């Protein structure tokens, strides 16, 4: 296999505005607009995203029991996360405590989602940059090019284990893509011993695949000094922010349940809160140039697109989770967590890792953890019990939070006495990360584009700054063409288009 192509040759542009639209391999369409000053250096950069309209209006007046199915329709990427957050919100709305069996089944289902989602991101979205190189030809820089480089047998393993993640969701959740099993206080479907055994077998295989993925990451990324140079490039990919993520009572990372922990730039706990307290912690800032709001920490305040202790901007997702926890409950993930910490310690990092591209490493550690936790749960013969539904009470207002693969996901509903929805608010993971991912784009653009010199590889390195967040901004559109891959529009200062370059 040929080595990755990390750099290409930039050419001079005299333009003042560069648009990357739509962004390649972003889950949900968006565009980057970069403004250059007279010297051809980056003055500003924006990550703009479209947003679906009318979802709140669509939900108001419907029965709250419909919401786990409706909210997961918002998204074809992480419907399981919406289903789990919504089901947990119904627990709160109906003052219902799920049975132990139901909790285990929900978490087992959710580990299937993590397998599926993290495999898709690492192999389909991230690997083209790492295996082929950020400056490799655009027509090869995709999952097909990755398979050409690593070989069909490895590609088959990727497809197989992603499919196992789907299968676990289908067995437990009733459907692979848009599950239907969550109910307040439990789940709707008992599983058989045969199904449990099938999931146990798949989980064992997923653990081996997790090991393989970690080794691949070590070989391809950590074993390549040029990539390490990118990962540790503090001019392009480094933000000292607050971090947020869910932890258990021992501060171990937990995707399904627990308190939400926030740490500062030095790793000190700023606050730990229950889902019901989220409005005391998070506020949302609005910018005129985008539909999407920007959450920030209330007690710190909004200071704009800047990092540091005085800015309430925070990060969620794999990097957020790994920075707020003190490890994992499963041995292989814990072992790799230690390697992660030791590696950055050798680079002089003692607290949280602020290197944006480290999102990828944290994600493969989580892939391993999800596989191990899947096996723990699938090996428990108790999960075939018929004790799958607990009691519930009249509906009221409720809040539920889980960790979507992309980060902290918050659902909040209010119900009238008949169970009809009177209010709905959701803060999704990519919204929580929006201010930080926008800041990362600007930082990378400033570092990569100097004196008006641009190239496809440099623009892709700007994209890499937000792609690692695995953003999923505009959940739900499925049109067949899905839009072109990369379009750069260069505009004069008055906004008129001078030239347009397409890579398709």
């Amino acid at each position, binding site marked *: 296999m040929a080595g990755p192509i990390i750099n290409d040759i930039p050419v001079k542009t005299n333009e003042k505005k560069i648009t990357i639209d*739509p*962004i*390649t*391999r*972003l*889950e*949900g*369409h968006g565009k980057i607009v970069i403004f250059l000053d007279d010297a051809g250096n980056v003055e500003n950069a924006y990550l703009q995203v*479209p947003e*679906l*309209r*009318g*979802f709140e*209006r*669509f939900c108001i007046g419907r029965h709250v029991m419909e919401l786990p199915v*409706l909210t997961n*329709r*918002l*998204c*074809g*990427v992480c*419907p399981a996360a919406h289903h789990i957050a919504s089901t947990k919100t119904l627990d709160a709305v109906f003052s219902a405590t799920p049975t132990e069996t139901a909790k285990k089944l929900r978490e087992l289902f959710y580990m299937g989602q993590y397998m599926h989602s993290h495999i*898709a*991101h690492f192999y*389909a*979205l991230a690997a083209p940059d790492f295996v082929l190189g950020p400056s490799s030809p*655009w*027509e090869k*820089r*995709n*999952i*097909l090019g990755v*398979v050409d480089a690593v070989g*069909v047998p490895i*590609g*088959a393993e990727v*497809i197989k284990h*992603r*499919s196992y993640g*789907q299968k676990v969701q289908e067995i437990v959740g009733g459907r*692979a*893509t*848009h599950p239907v099993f969550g109910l307040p206080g439990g789940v709707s479907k008992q599983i058989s011993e045969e199904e449990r055994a099938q999931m146990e077998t798949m989980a064992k295989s997923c653990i081996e695949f997790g090991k393989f993925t970690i080794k691949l990451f070590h070989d391809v990324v950590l074993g390549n000094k040029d990539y390490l140079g990118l990962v540790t490039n503090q001019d392009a990919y480094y933000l000292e922010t607050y971090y947020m993520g869910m932890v258990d009572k021992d501060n171990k990372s937990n995707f399904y349940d627990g308190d939400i922990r926030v740490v500062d730039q030095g790793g000190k706990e700023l606050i730990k809160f229950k889902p019901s307290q989220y409005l005391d912690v998070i506020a949302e800032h609005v910018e005129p140039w985008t539909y999407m709001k920007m959450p920030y920490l209330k007690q710190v305040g909004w200071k704009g697109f800047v990092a540091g202790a005085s800015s309430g901007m925070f990060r969620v997702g794999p990097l957020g989770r790994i920075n707020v926890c003190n490890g994992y409950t499963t041995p292989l993930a814990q072992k790799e967590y230690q390697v992660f910490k030791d590696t950055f310690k050798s680079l002089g990092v003692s607290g949280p890792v602020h290197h944006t591209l480290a999102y990828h490493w944290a994600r493969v550690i989580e892939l391993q953890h999800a596989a191990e936790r899947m096996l723990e749960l699938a090996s428990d013969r108790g999960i075939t019990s018929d004790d799958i539904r607990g009691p519930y009470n009249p509906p009221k207002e409720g809040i539920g939070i889980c960790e979507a693969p992309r980060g902290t996901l918050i659902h909040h509903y209010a119900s009238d006495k008949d169970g009809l929805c009177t209010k709905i608010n959701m803060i999704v993971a990519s919204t929580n990360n929006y201010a930080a991912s926008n800041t990362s784009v600007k930082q990378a653009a400033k570092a990569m584009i100097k004196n008006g010199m641009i190239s496809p590889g440099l623009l892709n390195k700007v994209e890499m700054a937000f792609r690692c967040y695995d953003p*999923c901004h*505009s*959940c*739900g*559109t*499925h*049109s*067949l*063409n*899905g*839009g*072109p*891959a990369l379009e750069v529009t260069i505009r004069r200062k008055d906004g008129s288009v001078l030239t347009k370059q397409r890579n*398709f």
Partner: protein
Amino acid sequence: MTESDEKKGKILVLGVGNPILSDDGVGIHVARILKEKLIPGIEIDELPASGLELLDIVHGYERVIIVDSIKTDGGKPGELYELQEEDFQKTIHGSSPHGINIPTALAMGRKIIPEQMPKEILFFAIEAKDTLNVSEKLTPEVAAALPGIVEQILRKLT
């Protein structure tokens, strides 16, 4: 009987889209109408996603017809296009909300599990008007075109 045996020699019509995102879900609307017609030898399914999920469904079938929405420059809402796999060569690397788009997923299947892939995959793509407003209803233009679209697809099946 295994899952592959059950699919062997059969034709699948797969409606793709988001049924609560107006015209984005037109493929699902078509699939639901076709399902009511109980056409012998034809299986009808829905997929509210795309990308690699598609492979989980289509592998093993003899022939697959995918019905989905599309947005083209200057296209007339409700217009129907019949496309082949090779028509997507130019967008094969394209983005989608699922990481990879349908043509890329199919190309992955042809590369990794060629023996399990359908011999023929046809696409019926319907020009969408609105794919951003959350609604279970199609826009009037696309809704008006629906009966004609279903007739054209039926002619292909019988």
